[in-house]
């Protein structure tokens, strides 16, 4: 079945002059034939995922409210690792795992400063590979704030999420009998009325800025929505659309 208005010209007279409308019409027919148009599910999943996140660019609308995110100003980090200690203390992280780390990069040939520190943690992705991989939906995107949460009772400990995570941000917690990960201190701080994460509160150099990216008055919003300083994310190519931004300067 081809949808065509009655007073339209014959479809293709001159192949050079295929109009935009004709192209669209043709595509639409193709979509109807493949049955994608009717449900629209396959197409819309891809496009919705595209809209979900800027991937470094600036989005007009954020899918969560508050849309929690963290901006890490890497050049300010002095490698004291008080954030790691604060995190361990707040969330009872065992010595064999981590929720946040400060990685160290040394470039001997560099002029001036030869070392830089790169804090890493769960990126609370908008398109999280771990959530897709979980066979029992024990890990999920919180519908309100977008934090990637764990349901410890559901977790069967198969560790597929650990293999799937592009940021290596998950570990198996023996005590909990479940995989554990950073939840932006939701359980220990945010849900109790605090406004910051433990790592941010412990940082003496104001490296980690935590906040609501959907609020134009927040610091994170101002740090991300500007063009003067570079803003990037880690492992952009996996298309996980992370919520941890890095900036310098």
């Amino acid at each position: 079945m081809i949808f065509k208005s009655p007073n339209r010209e014959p479809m293709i007279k001159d192949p050079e002059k295929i109009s935009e409308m004709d192209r669209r019409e043709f595509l639409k027919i193709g979509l109807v034939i493949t049955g994608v148009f009717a449900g629209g599910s396959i197409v819309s999943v891809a496009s919705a995922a595209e809209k979900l996140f800027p991937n470094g660019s600036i989005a007009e609308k954020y899918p969560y409210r508050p849309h929690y995110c963290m901006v890490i100003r890497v050049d300010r980090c002095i490698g004291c690792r008080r954030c790691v200690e604060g995190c361990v203390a707040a969330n009872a992280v065992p010595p064999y795992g981590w929720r946040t780390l400060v990685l160290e990069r040394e470039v001997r040939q560099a002029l001036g400063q030869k070392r830089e520190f790169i804090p890493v943690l769960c990126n609370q992705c908008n398109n999280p590979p771990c959530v897709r991989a979980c066979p029992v939906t024990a890990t999920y995107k919180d519908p309100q704030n977008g934090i990637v949460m764990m349901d410890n009772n559901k977790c069967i400990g198969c560790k597929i999420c650990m293999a799937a995570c592009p940021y290596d941000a998950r570990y198996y917690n023996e005590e909990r009998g479940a995989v554990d990960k950073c939840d932006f201190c939701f359980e220990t701080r945010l849900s109790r009325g605090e406004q910051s994460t433990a790592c941010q509160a412990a940082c003496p150099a104001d490296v980690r800025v935590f906040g609501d990216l959907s609020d134009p008055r927040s610091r994170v919003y101002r740090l991300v929505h500007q063009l003067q300083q570079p803003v990037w994310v880690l492992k952009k190519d996996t298309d996980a659309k992370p919520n941890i931004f890095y900036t310098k300067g």
Partner: protein
Amino acid sequence: MLNGREFWYGPYLPIFFIASAFLMGCAAVIFFTVLAYRVHREPLDRPMADALAAVGKLAGVMLAVIMFFTIWRMVTLAVGGTHGMLVRDALVSGPFAFNFWALEVGLGMILPFALILWSAGKRIGTLFLASALVIFSSFFMRLDMVVAGQIVPMYWELGVREYAKLHAYSPTGHEILVVLAGVGLSGAAFLLGEKVFQGFREVQLAGTSLAGMPEDDAQEPQMASNGKVDG
């Protein structure tokens, strides 16, 4: 597919998996059928031998497909990102070189393929050996897939001190025990199946007791038309 791991992600991977599942199925059919006949000390009859030879041909085709995809995967890894190249180097010339060349390619592809060709659809013993090799090497194929996919640290490209080396893996005692338990369980299930489902066989041989299964006699007339075993 997990797109966070380059080695586990690619358009050819599903085809590779399906082809190797087919191959494994063919190998298992040959292996366990021949084994079942040996367990019962029965000679293979003509129709069954022909059927096995046909399965052997299919296994040969699937082996060719697997060989093609293995080569193709190695080629595409070379033009992919750093992760893919590191994994390829680990397989081709690194810590997995023995597993890859000897166990996967040698025992799992070239030798069984040669044996299947050589068997010419007649020598069932040769087919049996080829299928046993395929089953054996499939284990290492999967093991290498799982392990090599994870040897590159996730933060490799940052060039940080903490993740400057590739991960190493050696199985723990528990893991080896689990694998052995799996092999043992399969063997036990096979033998149990042969004992319990003996009723599907028409001929009862001397020394094979079916005393506890009265329904065998009822099934006998129906089964007479197929699966005839030479007395």
